């Protein structure tokens, strides 16, 4: 795979600098770190820090800004950031009201953020951590690693971010983030792989006439390899897999994200949405909000994911609050 980069060792720092140079009013980069922090802090609110490996852009730095994150910590490509970096992020955004860490459920992310939380607490900062695990392609079992965190993370950012912006306490913000996590499920599909810069070959193979159902955002395998099929059929499979655990029924409100994996034309995402919307509509489910676009990507992976968030009235309320970030900009 051909890449418009300079050197694999520099992709993350040059990307972060490129982001700050494009949006100097939104961000600054903490010197010597891979942490982007919000420029215009609202005072005295709970800080929200997220992050993870790079390669998922616009996640996570694209969600830094009013009404969402206060800082994003970027690791190397597909590699969790280190605890000292996360700690810098925590320290930069704490205003005395404490800090919520939003982590996706990968061993590395969980451990590195956990260690950072311990270090921050040693310095007297109140820290809580929530772990997003929305990917229904992976079985949830206490004996294994459990479900992965994928696109649903964006809804956690949005709603926890809105709650923090409203001035809610750390416990309250954490509780609503947990509520999102309980109510959000996703599944992805890939038609072609991604390649980590500097590695010699793509992360996985997909046969000429195949697609991978239940793929993870780092190319982790999913439920099954299936024959290439129509967009409508893909939409149907995704809905079939995602809905059951949410127990949504006639009259429920949901938010939907039809997410591109990085290299998927918008045309295809809208064609998927055309069917996804109708499937929900036919079940009497009300789509309060539908996001279609590249929200949580995997470099140049080609494919899409569906995320459905079941809304309570409180979640709905927070979902509709304004936010001002590069990747999600919502007016009053």
């Amino acid at each position, binding site marked *: 795979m051909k890449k418009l980069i300079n050197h694999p060792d520099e992709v993350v720092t040059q990307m972060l600098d490129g982001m700050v140079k494009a949006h100097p009013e939104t961000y600054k980069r903490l010197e010597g770190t891979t942490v982007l922090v919000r420029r215009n802090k609202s005072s005295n609110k709970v800080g929200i820090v997220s992050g993870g*490996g790079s390669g998922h852009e616009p996640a996570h730095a694209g969600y830094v800004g009013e009404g969402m994150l206060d800082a994003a910590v970027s*690791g*190397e*490509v*597909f*590699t*969790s*950031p*280190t*605890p*000292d*970096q996360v700690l810098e992020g925590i320290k930069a955004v704490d205003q005395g009201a404490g800090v919520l860490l939003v982590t996706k459920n*990968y*061993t*590395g992310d969980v*451990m*590195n953020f956990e*260690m950072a939380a311990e270090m921050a607490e040693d310095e007297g900062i109140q820290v809580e951590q929530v772990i997003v695990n929305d990917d229904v392609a*992976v079985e949830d079992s206490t*004996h*294994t*690693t459990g479900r*992965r965190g994928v696109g649903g993370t964006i809804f956690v950012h949005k709603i926890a971010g809105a709650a923090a912006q409203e001035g809610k306490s750390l416990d309250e913000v954490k509780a609503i983030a947990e509520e999102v996590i309980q109510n959000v499920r996703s599944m992805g599909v890939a038609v072609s792989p991604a390649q*980590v810069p*500097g*590695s*010699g*070959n793509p*992360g*996985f193979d997909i046969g000429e006439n195949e697609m991978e159902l239940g793929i*993870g955002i*780092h*190319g*982790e*395998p999913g439920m099954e390899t299936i024959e290439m099929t129509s967009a409508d059929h893909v939409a149907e499979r995704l809905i079939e897999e995602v809905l059951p655990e949410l127990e949504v029924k006639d009259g429920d409100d949901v938010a939907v994200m039809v997410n591109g994996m990085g290299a998927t034309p918008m045309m295809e995402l809208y064609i998927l949405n055309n069917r996804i919307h109708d499937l929900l509509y036919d079940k009497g489910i009300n789509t309060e909000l539908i996001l279609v676009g590249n929200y949580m990507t995997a470099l140049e992976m080609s494919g899409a994911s569906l995320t459905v968030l079941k809304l309570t009235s409180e979640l709905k309320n927070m979902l509709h609050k304004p936010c001002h970030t590069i990747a999600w900009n919502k007016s009053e």
Partner: protein
Amino acid sequence: MFTANMAREWVKESSKKIEGNKDQLTNLDQALGDGDHGLNMTRGLKAAVEQLDEDTDEPGQVLKGVGKSLLSKVGGASGPLYGTFFMKAGNHLEGSKVEFSELASGLRIGVDGMKKRGKTERDEKTMIDLLEPVIEVMEERGNDVTPDHLMERANKSLDMVMEYEAKKGRAAYYKEKSKGKQDAGAQSSYYIIQALAEVIKKEG
């Protein structure tokens, strides 16, 4: 006797082996994970070598520094795990002359810390399946441990871990399909043990 010099040599030799096998580690991680283990470990051990405390004569100091470097340079799953391992081990070792039995106790504390941090047990197809059995040998043999003892057990463990089903880390998503494929972290642990054995052979 395990000295600060030997500790430094251990790290340098580990770095050499890991960098030399970067592609192998990355390929293993590509088959069962996300394909960055070779990159992660090379980056981390290079930093550990650069930041080596060359002045101290206390091996514990050296290992503590290594742990910190790994913790702040590797990231991913292996960073906190190896970081914890070396930091906890280093913390335990005192003074400039450390018996091999003492080294064994230090590494035991290291690997226990790793297990706790990773919420991992043995036989879950991780680096722990290489490190812990070798540390057990060290504990059993005490000061009489030889490089051959270490390598014998490491070789055996490497063969065994290959057949396990992964329960932790990204490899767990492969379930039974992970059997018969080598775990990248087990392989990097193998090189780290190999480096230790060589250092003991040379200096001991």
